[in-house]
């Protein structure tokens, strides 16, 4: 049987925890990480809530033993914390013993620093060192150097589905025998740029977001990073590696409907879910839990609900969006939700969809609202983004 590609390590930092264990404890305790913004000044701070990590950059720099004159952006800091945890968790001693690659994802890149000096003279001098760390590839290059990965290093940016595509490419490269091992994931920090950007679209919620609720009022932005270590069967066998779960299915489709909005019938999402099932060689009825994209915007949740109904018909499995815990962490979302999907498989638990009260009239779908223990063999995770980018990943139990 084609089990897919082995996941042998994972690492995460989000507003609900600084590592995998802390994230898991928050998830089962129904403890969210949605608060007011504290780390930087913005005039939006009283009108919105976000999933902010309450650790300032200086502390991260210390934790990572960075020299004083480093030019790490927050995206890079979060990325390195999570990537190091993943490598440690996979118990990798010599990274170059096998052909190892790194594929990361981001949408914010170094904008958190760029926005402080680009058009303001006041901060220009001390921030000049960040000119080159603006690029989306910068954080990836930094973690590659710190992990000593030199060859295949790349970065993907497909808005809010970015890290799903990083995981997908990594799995494909291992399957094709191009790499023996690959570290895949994504990182995005909060920035004034994205907060104001989403604000112009009028899709930011003033309160804790309510995914899949009839009276949902938009999303909470968040920041996070997460990485998985994927390894070939050859390594797993040779090193007697502990496998956490398998990446068994993946797909990417384009909604080709509108630059930012999803189509009403969820065309792209439906295509992505069906194709991922095909790749995994599974039927819709084999899926035990859907970790939905569920951003809590009126448009996404309607469109995704419709797509779920198209794929699963009347037999929709347990589903939930974990965005009410972490906020929408953009390019990192698929990676952190990949970690949550693996945790669901390992612990045989469905994580609740917080803040849900009333089903959407049109689609009448009710997510899980409590921590539920049940048999879970396959988890399907959705991530959709601007530009019509829709990606689906399927994770399977060992």
């Amino acid at each position: 049987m084609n089990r897919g590609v082995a996941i042998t390590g994972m690492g995460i930092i989000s507003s609900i925890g600084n590592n995998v264990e802390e994230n898991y404890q928050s998830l089962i305790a129904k403890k969210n990480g949605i608060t007011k913004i504290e780390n930087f000044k913005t005039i939006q701070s009283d009108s919105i809530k976000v999933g902010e990590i309450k650790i300032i950059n200086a502390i991260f720099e210390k934790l990572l033993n960075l020299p004083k004159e480093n030019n790490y952006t927050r995206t890079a800091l979060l990325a390195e914390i999570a990537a190091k945890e993943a490598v440690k968790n996979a118990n990798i001693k010599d990274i170059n013993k096998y052909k190892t690659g790194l594929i990361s994802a981001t949408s914010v890149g170094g904008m958190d620093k760029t926005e402080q000096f680009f058009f303001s003279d006041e901060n220009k001098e001390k921030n000049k060192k960040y000119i080159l760390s603006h690029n989306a590839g910068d954080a990836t290059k930094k973690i590659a150097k710190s992990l000593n990965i030199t060859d295949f290093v790349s970065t993907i940016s497909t808005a809010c589905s970015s890290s799903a595509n990083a995981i997908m490419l990594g799995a494909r490269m291992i399957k094709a025998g191009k790499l023996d091992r690959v570290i895949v994931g994504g990182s995005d920090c909060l920035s004034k740029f994205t907060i104001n950007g989403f604000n112009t679209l009028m899709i930011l919620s003033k309160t804790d977001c309510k995914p899949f609720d009839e009276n949902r009022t938009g999303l909470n932005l968040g920041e996070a990073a997460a990485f998985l270590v994927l390894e070939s069967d050859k390594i797993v066998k040779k090193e007697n590696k502990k496998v956490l779960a398998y990446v068994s299915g993946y797909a990417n489709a384009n909604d080709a409907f509108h630059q930012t909005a999803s189509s009403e019938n969820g065309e792209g999402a439906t295509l992505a879910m069906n194709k991922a099932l095909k790749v995994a060689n599974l039927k819709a009825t084999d899926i035990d839990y859907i970790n939905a994209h569920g951003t809590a915007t009126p448009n996404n949740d309607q469109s995704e609900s419709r797509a779920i109904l198209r794929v699963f018909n009347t037999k929709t499995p347990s589903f939930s969006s974990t965005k009410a815990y972490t906020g929408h962490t953009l390019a990192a979302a698929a990676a952190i939700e990949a970690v949550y999907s693996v945790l669901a498989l390992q612990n045989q638990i469905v994580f609740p969809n917080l803040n849900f009260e009333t089903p959407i009239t049109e689609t009448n779908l009710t997510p899980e609202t409590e921590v539920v223990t049940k048999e879970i063999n396959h988890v399907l995770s959705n991530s959709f983004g601007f530009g019509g980018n829709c990606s689906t990943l399927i994770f399977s139990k060992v």
Partner: protein
Amino acid sequence: MKNCYINGVGSVSAQETSDYETFLENYKEITTNITTVCKPNYRDFIKPNRIRRMASGVKNGVVAAKIALTEANLDSPDAIITGTGMGCTIDSEKFLKNIVANDEQFLTPTSFIQSTHNTVGGQIALSLQCNAYNVTYVHNATSFETSIIDAMLMLNDDASKILVGAVDEIGKQTTEFYKEAKIVKPEEIIFKDGLLNSKTKGTSLSEGAHFFVLENEKTTNTYAKIKAVEIYDILEENKIEEKIHQFLKDNQLDIDTIDAVILGNNGNVEFDCIFNNLQNGIFKHTQQLYYKHLSGEYYTANGFGLYLASNILKNQEIPEIVKINHKENKSLKHILLYNQYRGEEHSFILLSSC
């Protein structure tokens, strides 16, 4: 490994390459430190109601994609794969400027929406109504090369027709900072003695868009075959020759069977020495070509390199203007492209004639 043929090529660059019926006929060597593209007539390619929100990079990308698709006679590819080093710089700068100028108030969505890195890929999908696989690579000077690697993986799997390309555009403020950081040369006339004889730091910044239709099957319009692509984010200088030998060996070739090598010299004295060492070493007896005196430098300038290689293999003729040295070539069978940017992000692309 299944075949990967280049069956359509579209280019918008500092040269008149969007006039796809000609090939570098009226070339002009770059003489300024900042050079924008030779603008095509956008309205011939893009509907007015779409064009109104597009910054130049997006327009150039859509035009290059349409030219490539038309040449290959393809309506809807099995995948759209885009590379961009900087993404949509113009709209990013515009939105950021408004945030600062208006203290986060009265902001409108258009420039934010257009600022995401995947705008070009998304716009191509929208205009073709194409639901296929769509991804954007954003890793500096290997963004384009990773896109081809992905495309070749897909062609080896279940796809047979793929649109792959790369775009970068010049943002005004970014350029100012690049000048300060000495990435861009300061003086206006920079290559008085030619790019190859430059003795100063920094390069000449430009922009461009290049798209290619890659297919499993050969057609009457086939330019060349892509045999292999490899990238190295970090490569010690003394290991480059070894990696080139290995790359060619993996493809059953050696240096002597390479008819031309296309190098990415960009006039930056700090890093062109990497190319110079190869020119005087491993490639001493090989026909050496360069192109950044025509394209200028940007993260995805190697798209121009592939445009050049494709045309050379199809026409079986090398334009004098791109020759570094002069060697006798009976026929042109294999071309190797080697590029690196500021000593990192090395890439090898191997092409063969058909």
